[in-house]
């Protein structure tokens, strides 16, 4: 080999390193984009869950005396954090897919549980499955004249 020349093996190694570096940059970038999307989706999921939970436990819904066939927004409270037994029974009778839509949770699954001091008052409404990402919210409410804990879970299946 003459002075100042490069061997074809050196050139190939250099090109290979170059391709690897470019690929690594691209992979890292795609990974960052995915993470950003995942974070945005999780933020959306947690805010959607929080808004549905607030509406369920703090409002009467719309119209205020809604029935299964007239409901536009499901609210289960007589007063904030005081749940209506009648409305919970109607909520239980609404088909799951319709309930998801009315709670603006089309993209997710949900479960709504009431755990009372008296176990016969306990309720489970919604999906029984557990998904990948879970947002779990709970609060103390008044139900049937006594204290109860409401747990609202939202997840992706």
């Amino acid at each position: 080999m003459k002075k100042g020349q490069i061997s074809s093996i050196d050139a190939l190694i250099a090109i290979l390193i170059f391709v690897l570096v470019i690929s690594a940059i691209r992979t890292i970038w795609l990974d960052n984009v995915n993470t950003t999307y995942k974070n945005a989706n999780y933020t959306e999921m947690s805010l959607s869950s929080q808004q549905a939970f607030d509406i369920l436990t703090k409002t009467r819904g719309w119209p205020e005396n809604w029935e299964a066939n007239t409901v536009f927004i499901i609210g289960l409270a007589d007063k904030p954090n005081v749940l209506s037994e009648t409305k919970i029974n109607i909520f239980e009778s609404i088909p799951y897919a319709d309930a998801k839509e009315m709670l603006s949770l089309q993209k997710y699954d949900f479960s709504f549980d009431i755990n009372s001091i008296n176990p016969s008052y306990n309720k489970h409404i919604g999906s029984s499955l557990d998904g990948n990402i879970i947002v779990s919210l709970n609060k103390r409410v008044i139900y049937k004249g006594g204290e109860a804990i409401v747990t609202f879970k939202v997840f992706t299946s």
Partner: protein
Amino acid sequence: MLSSKGQISAEIIIAVIVMLILFVIVLANNFAMESSSSDVASSINDKKECIRFAYLISQVYSSGDGSTASFDLENSATIYSTQKTITINQESCYFLAPTSNYSFSKGKLTLFNVDGNILMVMQ
């Protein structure tokens, strides 16, 4: 060839061509990532604004009659009351409140809960 003065070897020409090709590849890659990054950032910002706005509407509703809030809208937004949907550019999200259809351009909004209905006024 009569004189070798001022000549360059074929290897150097090939090396320069290879370097130019690699430079073009880097440049194209960089350009693609930059424009894609800007699309991703813009779509995520729209989505974030949409969900913050939707959440605020729902909060004003759940806080009861007489509650108010204000929101700085950075993009045009359309509110579809029956679908309970907000659309900002290509992004959409859901709120939970009875309201009317609205179409707003960028600006400061005030939200009012009047008898359980959400009214929105651009200032």
